């Protein structure tokens, strides 16, 4: 029988089966992952014409390419002849792909260039075949997004208010450009993808899950999510949300404080920024980077960029890399080092988050309580000056935003 999402997703609680039911996972692929805009990478990963790198959209093996005329495209890694992989290497540079099985060749934009022994097809150019292309590809601040739906909201419409957060990130570069050139850690968790997404938006867990590292490093991060914090959780709409730490940073009013350092440590960077932004630089350097979850799979935690890839109802791969700021060599080494220490399989933060996702998934096997509670902060939510719903730093406002958008997509999908 068909899943009743309106019953499973309620304003203050969601049902455990959403994380364990293979049928629901299959529907999510069709209604979310192969329909809405999903982030697959960044243009800086294919900087030169001919550059390519293999990426994934859920189970789809796609090749992100840079064509001769500089266009970034996404091809499906499946030969039009008999379905062989046309690309085995993880990355490289080539204007064309050659399938090893029978030697068919394709331009890196997907067009079939040729096939050996063409008389078997009545000669050259007789086949109106080519590599599958992701129907819609668009970028914002260099982040590459894919949609398998030929029609639907534009990327700008999809991003909505989240776009501004990507702008804030890019603005931290003296050249206004982020680069994701440090390669990716790929971290596998035995957990449903939504447990990762919710964790990313969750300001309630850091003091507990990350207390071990906060205590030994004397990190101030815990405090940012404490009861006293003036930081807020903001539902940006469209399933996007942010943990807005700026109120705390503004209070401290320390340029570069958001990065746990001071102007003195990164003089060239600060100089460039002040030269470029004048008065406004102070604010930029104080407010720092965003902490935003872009539905459904892009998470930016100040210095780290995560892209979530669901691989099974109970398995997810979290890809993560360090933010690199174009024109800020002084910053980039620090950004990388801090990111490497925090994220991935051995990260002092993410390893423990991942342990939580996995225990969470195992806990879901229990028959009761059937529900997950998401009511935290319902009673103290308010609407900010821009009309966004906001809660306290450790409220579940972001999750509720996620779920209402999720429910919309899943029911819409059912309707179609």
């Amino acid at each position, binding site marked *: 029988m068909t899943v009743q999402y309106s019953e499973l997703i309620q304003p203050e609680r969601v049902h455990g089966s959403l994380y364990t039911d293979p049928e629901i996972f299959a529907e999510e692929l069709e209604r979310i992952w192969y329909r809405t805009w999903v982030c697959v990478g960044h243009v800086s990963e294919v900087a030169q014409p001919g550059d390519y790198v293999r990426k994934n959209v859920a189970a789809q093996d796609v090749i992100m390419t840079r064509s001769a005329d500089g266009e970034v495209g996404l091809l499906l890694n499946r030969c039009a002849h008999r379905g062989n992989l046309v690309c085995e290497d*993880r990355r490289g540079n080539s204007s064309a792909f050659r399938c090893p099985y029978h030697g068919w060749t394709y331009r890196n934009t997907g067009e079939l260039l040729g096939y050996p022994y063409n008389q078997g097809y009545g000669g050259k150019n007789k086949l109106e075949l080519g590599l599958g292309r992701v129907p819609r590809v668009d970028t914002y601040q260099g982040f590459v997004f894919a949609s398998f739906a030929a029609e639907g909201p534009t990327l700008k419409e999809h991003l909505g208010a989240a776009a501004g957060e990507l702008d804030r990130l890019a603005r931290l570069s003296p050249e206004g450009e982020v680069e994701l*050139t*440090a*390669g*990716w*850690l*790929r*971290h*596998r*968790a*035995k957990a449903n993808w939504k447990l990762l997404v919710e964790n990313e938006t969750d300001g309630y867990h850091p003091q507990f*899950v990350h*207390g*071990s*590292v906060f*205590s*030994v*490093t004397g990190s101030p991060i815990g405090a940012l999510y404490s009861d006293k914090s003036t930081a807020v959780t903001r539902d940006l709409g469209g399933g996007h949300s942010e943990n807005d730490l700026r109120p705390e940073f503004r209070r401290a009013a320390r340029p570069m404080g958001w990065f746990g350092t001071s102007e003195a440590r990164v003089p060239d960077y600060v100089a460039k920024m002040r030269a470029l932004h004048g008065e406004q630089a102070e604010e930029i350097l104080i407010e720092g980077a965003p902490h935003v979850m872009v539905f459904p799979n892009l998470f930016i935690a100040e210095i780290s960029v995560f892209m979530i890839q669901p691989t099974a109802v109970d398995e997810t*791969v979290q890809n*993560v*890399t*360090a933010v690199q700021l174009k024109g800020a060599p002084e910053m*980039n*080494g620090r950004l*990388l*080092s801090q*990111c*490497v*220490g925090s994220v*991935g*399989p*051995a990260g*002092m933060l993410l*390893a*423990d988050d*991942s*342990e*939580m996702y*996995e225990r969470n998934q*195992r806990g879901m096997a229990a028959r009761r309580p059937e529900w997950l509670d998401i009511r935290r902060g319902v009673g103290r939510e308010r609407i900010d000056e821009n009309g966004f719903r906001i809660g306290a730093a450790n409220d579940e406002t972001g999750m509720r935003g996620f779920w209402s958008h999720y429910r919309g997509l899943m029911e819409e999908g059912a309707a179609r």
Partner: protein
Amino acid sequence: MSSPELGEIERFLYREARLADEHDYDGWEALWTDDALYWVPAGGPDTDPRSQMSVIYDNRSRIRTRISQLKTGKRYSQSPPSNMRRLISNVEVVGVEGTDTVAEANFVLVESRERGTTLWSGRVTYRLRRVEDDIRLAYKKVVLVNSAEALSTLAFLI
């Protein structure tokens, strides 16, 4: 002082392995020199750790932080700790760099925890230094055979 020969090196590597397997965090940390470097590359053996992501890239002070975190007992990814044993084999002395002796070895590590059993394997490069009449670890690089694939959580001492 003479550079250590194979037997002594193997004894040291077996000890290092045992301390790690048995979560003897202080004992393991004490093996390191002050200029220690502990590196687990990601995405292949030959990345540049100063420009590319690594699974672990710890200098001495970060090793201390990592150990301190484990010792809190609230490093949940290792609390409860993994049950594990690693075999160090094919130990080869590959050369001398300054005062350090460079050795390489292969390993397999079988990890059991509630998540299930995980098999880890790879090649390790060690830089060993004689300090007084003991040996210290100045450098350890662990190249996992599956460093190009998605990895499970690796919060124990590898």
